[in-house]
């Protein structure tokens, strides 16, 4: 049995301790935000916040989340509405397929939490480990800068 906080609510799951956190989130806890992309911490699409730090959930055993607080894309919503950062992604139409968006937004949230007024270079460097195949990079950077500006 592993217990942790998921998007501010306590959860308990009876799963193998070495099961990847990502699989537990998506298969056992009904989280849609974090996505499987590579299983090797190379693409960032599975990124979630664990106690505020961006973590690759595909390569993190669920046991590592025990007693901690896990935040996924859904958890960023504020009163059921998109957060400022999520709204900035919508306003900038910062996607084509949008598969990488969850990881991008989580990674960007981690950046904004520790650096609320990042430069464009700060954003690019914070997101450099998150892969986008559609070529939405510049829109994504604009969305993060927009959210920072509107803060």
């Amino acid at each position, binding site marked *: 049995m592993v217990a942790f906080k998921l998007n501010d609510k306590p959860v308990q799951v009876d799963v193998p301790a070495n099961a990847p956190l990502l699989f537990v989130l998506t298969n056992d806890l009904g989280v849609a935000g974090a*996505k499987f*992309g590579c299983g090797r911490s190379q693409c960032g699409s599975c990124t979630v916040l664990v106690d505020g730090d961006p973590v690759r959930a595909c390569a993190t055993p669920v046991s590592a989340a025990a007693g901690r607080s896990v935040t996924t894309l*859904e958890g960023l919503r504020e009163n059921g509405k998109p957060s400022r950062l999520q709204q900035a992604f919508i306003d900038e139409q910062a996607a084509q397929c949008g598969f990488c968006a969850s990881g991008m937004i989580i990674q960007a949230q981690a950046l904004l939490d520790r650096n609320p007024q990042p430069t464009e270079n700060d954003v690019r460097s914070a997101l450099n480990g998150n892969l986008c195949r559609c070529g939405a990079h510049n829109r994504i950077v604009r969305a993060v800068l927009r959210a920072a500006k509107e803060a």
Partner: protein
Amino acid sequence: MTLTAEKGAPMKGPVLGRRRLLQAGGFLSLAFALPLGDVLAQTAAPARPPLPGSLQTNRMLNAWIRINADKTVTLLVGKVELGQGILTAVAQICADELDIDMARLKIIAGDTALTPNEGTTAGSFSMPNCAPAVRHASAEVRAILLDLASKSLNQPVTALTVADGTITGPGGAKTTYWDLVVGQALEREATGQSTPKAASAYRYTGKSVPRLDIPAKMTGEPIFVQEMRPEGLLHGYVVRPPTYRAKLASVDLSVGERMPGVVKVVRDGSFLAVLAGREEQAVAAGQALYAAAKWDVEKGLPGTDGMPEWLTSTKPARVIETRNTPRQGGDAPVKTVEATYYRPYHMHASIGTSSAIATMGADGVVTIQTHSQSVFETAEAISKMLKLPREKVRCQHVQGSGCYGHNMADDAAADAALLAVQMPGKPVRIQYTREQEHRWEPYGSAMVVKTKAGVDKDGNVLDWDFQIYSTPHGTRPGGNPGNLLSARYLAEPFQQPTPQNGGPPNYSADRNGIALYEFPGHRVLTHFITEMPLRVSSTRGLGAYGNVFAIESFIDELAHAAGADPVAYRLKFMKNERARDSIVKAAEAFGWDKWRKRDGRGRGIGFAQYKNTAGYCAVCLEVEVNKRNGRIRVLRAVASADSGHLVNPDGVVNQIEGGLIQSLSWTLKEEVKFDDTRVLSEDWASYPILTFAEVPPVDVVLIDRPGQPFLGTGEASQGPTGAALANAVFDATGVRFRRLPLTPDRVRAGLTA
């Protein structure tokens, strides 16, 4: 998939069953009641009038549009959302022609039991085929509704106005679409006689309406097939052989059966798979089975470095005269210039690995949720693979990670179906590992292009000779199980059919092989090789990327040889006005004429009209080349785009910009590596793609052509970008690079050679 165009509201679950749909719609007066499978019978009879776009082959109005009693409208289309924004664009058109608010629209796309069959969503065909069909169907339904209103209100049609489905006559008499349709059964074939609105009368069309699917994607509402988790789900894992043609000699199935959570191990010839209750259990059992299995492995691949030589020395199945226009008279050339170009294999490299869910119902129907681009033809191929009647397989499109062509979506659908029939009543989910997706997807084919030009004393082209050497670019399912990966490994295997090269006007290996420039003599030969060392299929642009890279590099070489400006030299041979416009607009926006050379920096241009029939696009790039380490930095990019009448300008910008960045990634970094037995590029470390730090600012200049046909855009910037990059690197270094990708090692070697 279904999409609800409620303002800003996230979409509900990604799949709406047929029954739920009917319930949601209440009384359906424009009834659409095609039974499962009958959609296939909707073929055009030759005597009937030609209709616009896909209406030609799906002629019933009620196949496209339903007016629902709950004051909504359902739009059904056969083209599917791949992240290219097609569903938003056709929703804009539908709402405009019907005079309704977009928020009233519900969209169902790509369901073999419900929607029109519009073939494959590919080749930049969605706007040319689907959009005119939606436009004319909507206009015609509006005319029918006005006719009904005229009778109901006892007023002539010309006296009526419509706003958001409410029809008003003189003196304020009103009725609505929803009132009018109650009790009417309107199963009508389109006549093609309706008159769509003038561009100036549109409310949505021509505006950058935000994409309908984006809010869900940014807030974590389930919308992708990868996110679906139906109750009672089993996870499947297919154990791929170590190499393409390896045979499974022996395996102890109990190795898998003993693993935790395993429900079933399936072996059918060399097809080996496992079903488990948990995803990580399926993966662990699959990997244990792989380790326990003995395979007969073949050798004989040409290897990464041997590929250019292999292409030019292998006997082609056909040598196709794609064009042969000999020069009529005139002097012999004073000089002949020759060059050879190479593009390697590329991956689609979707960020999310391919996935599908299949369930065999009590009625024996296998229902598959898939991100396939070709639900109808894939359903047919799967039904043949399973030896089931066609109507026993239903495919429903649900969005997936961007595919950029034929990736493993169809293989995942087939694998899920193969396992679902083993466990009737249980939904079976497949999602490949990264290694499986990287190593087994059908790549964009490697190509060699040999060019030769005879020029006059001023360096003008007299004779243009262009020879393409390529393996196939199309092995989509196409209703044939031999094109589904796992079907080839069954105990009774399906043979892969010999791929064909597509002919005019779209072509395949020779797509964009005919330069749009007008040369006195012009010959294009396509050496079409059907043998496939690596698995290949449609990858964004097919042969266009390699061919445009060669054409636009070579014309650049000729311009430099003639001492001419590359833009001016191109314009000399380009008579097509829209093409000229595209080149000039890109050059102006880039500041081509004002640009001043600095050490280590260069500029380059590339142009193509995709397929010579779709969108026009010119790309200018500025680069900086570090001559010491060979690194290329792209400093900025400017592109022009003429896609005809613009429906959603930001959608076009997004496609051009995204295609440009993806093409930079191909050109700078990408090459599938393989040795004599197997593919070695198995993850993002061994097959790197462009990252944030490497992406330049991109400026897109749109050229709108109101009233002109909609031209496809999705693949327009791939070719021009590759060439613009090589041209800019030449400008920066004086060295011409003809073999891709332009990795630091290759550039450094070229500069010191």
